[in-house]
């Protein structure tokens, strides 16, 4: 341990220390005596003052010399180096053979060489030294654990060989750092470790193609502890050809049809000509393109689907085979948006030309193929009947015109929301604020007050001056051309008060928009498992011009889409990911049916099952389907693909790999052959524990400020 310098040559700059001295000397002649007519008026300065000034000037000179010294020191980059481990203190050895089974190892001939290397390592290990075999890609799997029984150690080599023989290439990508950390933890936590002394050595034998893509670009800071030795065996294909489908997307085209976009990348150093790219949809090859992709670059192609194609789409893009075939197919899925049942609750007003319900009915078409919702308008009296009937129970209720809403109607809506329903509640002047406060808002941070204006006049209105553009409803309005709601005029509304800050949620309530007088213009309230959104203004032309404003329809659509969790398309998963429980479709008993890629038949899974986490890990590319137990059709189909970056077979140099994951003690032995250069290890192989260059630069800055202050004080 001790201090050293990364760039000692910069210390030559310390020779500049002479500069302040010279400057102070050169400046002296400026202080040559001045012949003056008479000094009789110049006050005497005591000798002490002169002495003090002399000392001040010397201090100033020293300060400037210190500045230069700091500058030179900062550029020479001093650091504190960590000690290398002392071999004499090390004890018995345990071995872990880490075999890379990521899909890039499936490159022609690579995995066989890796197995041979593993067997060679196992053969070279002494008979009494325990061996464990682990395979890894994105996750780690112990295929041959340590054996604690001394007699069984001899047999552990054989078990290790069998594990190696049985190992197969998987579909996952590689994550070296997390796997090494996990491997170290597993090895350290194995039974043998408890019997071993604290000085016991652990040697990790890593057999991998050392893909660059497996190492994070930004170093996480974790390194193997000094007591762990890492021996790396790099097995790479000499010149592999690999092209891959790295991305697929489904986009709606202008004619309401769908387009499948595919990105084809050529990872190798040779151009690819006449590359056939096929679109396979629902098991049928629909279209084929022939592309040329230059070396180390990508190109995009698109397939147009017939507008008549409907329903759930499952397909993949297929390339012709090369040295690594697994990434030549990329799956995609598309789920049509599910129809959302919307119930419009409004009074029957035959005498009114444009009642509130009319605007909602016009904005939400009732035809089945006209939108993602099916709407029905009912009178308030029929609401309870609809809520009680599971077949008629809607996803969203729009209470747009309740004449003096009664307490039982409000309670019904509240109860509906509490059970997971969604409500858009439009207030009007006939509703009693006290009733709303008692039934709807009590304990929820919202209070209804009186009407804003006692009399409605066309020249008297408020505008909507603020909307929460971060809220999902307003995200589509974020563009500068769409985020101005000031054209909306509100000639009256119910004044609501909310206890939350302007931009922050408080408890269950969130203000989504405000009028110019700071009163909420839109409030979201969580009720149990559901939500209610309140518009404090009646949607008729007497109260607001919103219905005839172009923002009305998009605002209503976005509100209902938000309330109904409307989604279309599909999610693309990656092999190795664990499917989160919320992605499953489950019934009330937590039972859902999923079909994971690579598995045959349906698998019914309960979220409460013990092994649910293990079972929900995606192991193979393909389709990941979910549905309710007993349902006929799959509710959601998502695609699962291999990690695209894994197809990049560009290796990371062994030396760089070692520097990223090991410390000085592990590097010291092999540093010459590794030709270590770079960041965390010095020329002697020591770990750069802490570098002080930046700290010195900050100190330099501080001293410059001190010098400036000191200079100004001297002048004063």
């Amino acid at each position, binding site marked *: 341990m001790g201090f050293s310098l990364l760039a000692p040559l910069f210390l030559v700059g310390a020779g500049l220390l002479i500069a302040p001295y010279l400057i102070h000397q050169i400046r002296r002649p400026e202080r040559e*005596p*001045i012949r*003056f*007519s008479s000094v009789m008026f110049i006050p005497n300065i005591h000798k002490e003052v002169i002495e003090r000034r002399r000392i001040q000037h010397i201090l100033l000179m020293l300060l400037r010399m210190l500045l230069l010294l700091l500058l030179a020191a900062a550029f020479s980059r001093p650091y504190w180096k960590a000690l290398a481990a002392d071999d004499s203190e090390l004890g018995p050895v345990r071995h872990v053979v880490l075999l890379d089974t990521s899909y890039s190892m499936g490159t022609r001939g690579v995995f066989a060489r890796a197995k041979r290397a593993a067997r060679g390592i196992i053969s070279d290990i002494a008979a009494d030294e325990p061996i464990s075999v682990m395979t890894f890609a994105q996750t780690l799997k112990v295929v041959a654990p340590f054996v604690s029984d001394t007699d069984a150690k001899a047999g552990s080599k054989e078990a290790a060989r069998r594990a190696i023989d049985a190992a197969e290439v998987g579909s996952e990508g590689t994550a070296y750092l997390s796997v090494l950390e996990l491997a170290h933890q597993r090895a350290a936590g194995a039974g043998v470790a408890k019997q071993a002394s604290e000085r016991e050595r652990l040697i990790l034998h890593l057999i991998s193609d050392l893909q660059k893509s497996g190492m994070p670009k930004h170093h996480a800071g974790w390194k193997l502890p000094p007591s762990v030795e890492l021996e790396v065996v790099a097995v790479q294909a000499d010149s592999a050809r690999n092209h891959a489908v790295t991305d697929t997307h489904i986009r709606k085209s202008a004619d309401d049809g769908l387009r499948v976009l595919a990105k084809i990348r050529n990872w190798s150093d040779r151009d690819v000509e006449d590359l056939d790219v096929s679109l396979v949809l629902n098991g049928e090859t629909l279209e084929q393109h022939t592309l040329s992709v230059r070396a180390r670059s990508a190109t995009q192609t698109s397939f147009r689907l017939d507008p008549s194609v409907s329903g759930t789409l499952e397909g993949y893009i297929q390339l012709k085979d090369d040295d690594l075939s697994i990434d030549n197919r990329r799956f995609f899925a598309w789920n049509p948006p599910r129809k959302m049942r919307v119930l419009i609750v409004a009074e029957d007003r035959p005498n009114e030309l444009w009642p509130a319900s009319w605007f909602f009915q016009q904005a939400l078409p009732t035809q089945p193929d006209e939108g993602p919702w099916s709407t029905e308008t009912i009178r308030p009296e029929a609401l309870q009947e609809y809520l009680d009937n599971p077949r008629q129970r809607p996803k969203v209720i729009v209470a747009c015109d309740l004449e003096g809403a009664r307490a039982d109607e409000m309670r019904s809506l509240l109860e509906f929301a509490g059970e997971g329903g969604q409500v858009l509640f439009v207030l009007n002047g006939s509703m009693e604020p006290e009733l709303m406060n008692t039934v709807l808002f009590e304990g929820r941070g919202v209070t209804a007050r009186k009407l804003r204006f006692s009399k409605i006049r066309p020249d008297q209105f408020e505008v909507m001056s603020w909307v929460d553009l971060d809220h999902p409803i307003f995200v589509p309005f974020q563009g500068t051309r769409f985020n101005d709601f000031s054209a909306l005029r509100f000639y009256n509304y119910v004044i609501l008060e909310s206890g939350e800050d302007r931009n922050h949620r408080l408890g269950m309530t969130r203000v989504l928009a405000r009028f110019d007088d700071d009163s909420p213009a839109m409030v979201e309230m969580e009720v149990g498992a559901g939500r209610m959104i309140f518009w404090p203004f009646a949607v008729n032309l007497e109260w607001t011009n919103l219905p005839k404003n172009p923002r009305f329809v998009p605002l209503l659509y976005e509100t209902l889409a938000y309330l109904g969790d409307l989604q279309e398309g599909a999610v693309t998963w990656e092999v190795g990911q664990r499917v989160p429980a919320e992605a499953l479709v489950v019934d009330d008993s937590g039972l859902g049916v999923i079909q994971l890629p690579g598995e045959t038949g349906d698998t019914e899974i309960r979220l409460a099952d013990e092994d649910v986490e293990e079972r929900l890990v995606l192991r193979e590319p393909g389709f990941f389907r979910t549905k309710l137990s007993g349902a006929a059709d799959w509710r959601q189909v998502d695609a699962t693909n291999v990690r695209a970056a894994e197809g990049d077979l560009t290796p990371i140099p062994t030396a760089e790999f070692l520097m990223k994951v090991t410390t000085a003690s592990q590097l010291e032995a092999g540093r010459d052959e590794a030709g270590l250069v770079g960041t965390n290890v010095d020329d002697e192989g020591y770990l750069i524990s802490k570098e002080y260059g930046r700290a010195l630069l900050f100190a330099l800055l501080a001293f410059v400020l001190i010098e400036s202050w000191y200079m100004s004080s001297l002048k004063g």
Partner: protein
Amino acid sequence: MTKQETSLQIIDPEQLAKIADLQVLARTVVEGVMPGLHRSPHSGSSIEFAQYRPYTQGDDLRNVDWKLYGRTDRLHIKQYQEETTLRCTLLLDCSASMDYASAGLTKFDYARMLVACLAMLLHRQRDAAGFIAYHKELLQYIPPLSNALHLRRIFVELDNLEPQGTGDTAGALHYLGDVLKPRGMVVLVSDLLHPMDEMIEHLKSLRARRHDVVVLQISDPAEQTFPFDKSATFIDAESGDEQYAVPEAVRDNYLRNRREHFDSIRRECLAHEIDIAEFTTTEPLDRALHFFLQHRNHALIRSSLKSRRAEGGGR
């Protein structure tokens, strides 16, 4: 703007200094100053007629003898006895402190030009001009006379003077008191950078002997503002004493000390009817000459009034 003010602005001391010949220089200045300045001190005709003299530019037309003009067709001015008796002695401080200049002219150069102009002015007015140059010793004494040869001598002596050594104004005044006849005029041209007590005593003494005393203090702009910005050691031009100073730190004290010194001189002078004025080396000479002429006229008025009182008392 009057003609007099215009003439004050056109005489730049540095430009004047380029005229090597003091006589020419003095004539240049004086001829610029004369028009409109030379006003007769006489208020009546009771003063005894002395002689006629030819009219010169700047003379008051009221003093022209028009009858004589009618007879001779030439302009003549009537002169009276008192006018011709003004004897003015010019004292020039030649100490080393006068040899200081922050830029342009030294105080000595300025003072020398001033003295030359005064001498020329006196000569033009048919007054007698005397001259004393001194530093710690008396360098030159030329008694007051009013002929051209005498004036030329003063200019020659002025040309030959070099400022050096310490100044002893008190000693020069003391000497002047011994040699000067009463009721003359004494003009002291100095930077007054000396101990003041003894000098004031001798000035008072001159006043007591009915001399009109004028003190023209010459200063350099740097002395008035102490504009230095770097700390340095200042060396006294006369004594050679050294004084280290940080200008920013001592400027206020310096200016206060200087103001106190000159205020006390000024107070003493005014208390004893000694006229005193300060001139900066960047200032046009006209102002000094104007100041002098005004004072001379007042002196003549005083003199004539005393004379008349004395005559009236005798009847």
